[in-house]
């Protein structure tokens, strides 16, 4: 982890009509840092993710990438600026092959006139897909296989590998270890470490607190639309993290929940 701040949210709020989903959230992400984003359902995690990924525009507040203020008009703009987001529900097309998925939206065209006519360099993409995935520590079966032929864990690995191999600055992972077995989740955590080693800023959203405690450098806790805790992971224990999420740690005395 370096001291360079790569992505920063200043006092970001988001309302949907009269509902305040997020109030005054400020977040700082450094290059090579893994930040865990935790909170109960409805705490504002996905709203914050949508703002950070460019899917929604904040009602107020601003975003800075590499010290430059940005207003994302669409996820595409954030994507082009170097922010990759892996959404909770599979962001892969099951009928396409591994390499087609890996290159979707950024295909390599055939050289020469064929490329100008819109034809693709399939073999080259298949080879590069294989190499790209290997580089981030994912070995999947032949990249010409359709994604639907892979296991759930392999699919998730491909989806994350895709995000990591394309991300230039920031990668946002929304519940990437959901529904995975222990070993597969372990692989995903390794990919997160690879992304960190690559110098990317990683935002890791998860309900699985052991994973968060294992892989993150810092944990940001959201409750009722506000950031209530932002501290190095070493300062948390499993119990104190749960307490921070449910709110039993500060103001209120212990409840019967």
């Amino acid at each position, binding site marked *: 982890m370096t001291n360079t701040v790569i992505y920063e949210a200043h006092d970001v709020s988001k309302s949907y009509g009269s509902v305040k989903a997020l109030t005054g959230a400020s977040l700082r992400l450094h290059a090579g840092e893994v930040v865990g984003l935790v909170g109960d359902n409805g705490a504002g995690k996905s709203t914050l993710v949508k703002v950070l990924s460019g899917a929604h525009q904040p009602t107020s507040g601003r975003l800075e990438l590499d010290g430059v203020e940005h207003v994302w008009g669409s996820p595409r703009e954030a994507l082009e600026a170097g922010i990759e987001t892996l959404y909770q529900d599979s*962001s892969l097309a099951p009928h396409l092959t591994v390499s087609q998925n890996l290159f979707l939206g950024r295909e390599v065209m055939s050289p020469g006139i064929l490329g100008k006519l819109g034809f693709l360099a399939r073999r080259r993409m298949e080879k590069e897909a294989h190499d790209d995935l290997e580089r981030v520590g994912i070995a999947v079966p032949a990249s010409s296989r359709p994604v639907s032929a892979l296991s759930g864990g392999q699919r998730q690995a491909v989806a994350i590998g895709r995000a990591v191999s394309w991300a230039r600055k920031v990668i946002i992972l929304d519940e990437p270890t959901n529904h995975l077995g222990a070993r597969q989740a372990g692989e995903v955590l390794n990919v997160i470490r690879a992304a960190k080693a690559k110098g990317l800023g990683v935002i890791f959203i998860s309900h699985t607190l052991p994973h968060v405690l294992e892989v993150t450098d810092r944990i940001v806790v959201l409750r009722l639309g506000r950031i209530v805790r932002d501290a190095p992971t070493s300062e948390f224990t499993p119990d104190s993290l749960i307490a921070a999420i449910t709110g039993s740690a500060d103001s209120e005395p212990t409840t019967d929940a």
Partner: protein
Amino acid sequence: MTDSSQAISVTPSPAAEARKARAFDALTSQSSLLLGVLVILIIVFTILEPKFFSVATASNILTDWGSIVLIAVGQAFVIISGGIDLSVGAVIGLSGVVAAWTMANVLGLDQTVKGQDAWGGLLVGAAVSVGVGLLVGLINAFLINVLKIVPFIATLSTMGAALGLSVVISQGAPIGSANDFALISSFSPQWNPLSPALVVVIVVVTVLGLYLHKARVGLYTYAIGSNAFAARAAGINVARHLTWVYALSGALAGLAGIYVYIRLGAGSPSSGTGRELDAIAAVVIGGVSLMGGIGRLPGVVIGALILFTVQSGLIMIGVEPDWKKVVVAVLIAAAVAAQVLRKSDGRS
């Protein structure tokens, strides 16, 4: 349980694996199976009625195939993208009628034109026909993308509008004889299986096949039908791509419109009625999934051939022509059932 680390990560050689997978796919591919079905059908019909195996029958089948394969290819793009286009049959009628009306009333042509003028008239007619189809396709795209009407309803309403308009314009009767009959019949596959009309169809279908399977537009069509959310997240402009797909389907229906005009020698408002069902039948027989994301164009081309082989074969062995629609319906149901069975078999 000797080495658990092997399960997820290690594969012997991706290249060899891919080659093996491809060889296996080629043998069991939908196209090979469909070709097998086609050959069996031809053999069965020939045994039942030896006259079936003839140039005349082949010519008949190819003539019908020529118009339907065009709209089936358009339909394949649409269905692979996760939609459906019910308007294509009606567009065949409308575009043929508008082309005939333009040639007769705007260009002032009749059957006395010969040579150069007849050629020019026919080209203008073809352009008008394709243009009308394109326009209906763009309207479909507008209804779907901008007004957010589901494709089934959007194209059902343009189907109704196109059917109605073609009757209004033609006043219910075919508009004919705007051309040199000798010229247009030289185009018609009815008199010459390898007619220019059929050659145009084959070239168009081949080019579109290359685009569907080898080019970016094709990839995006599959991606949207497979997972529109993922396609959008990957930065694909889904609305723009779907506009392209529906415009293509419309334009192909317009091309089929002039094909049918050439074949009939007239623009008839009812010439395409119900043809969308033939197209959908060819597409699903060809192995395209109505759920989107799956299917290949060679299958659709053979699917359309199977459809017309069955139809002419049944007529030749003495089945009443009125049964044709029932047969098409049964084929659609059987093809979809076969897809479902294959899927629950663990293969997709």
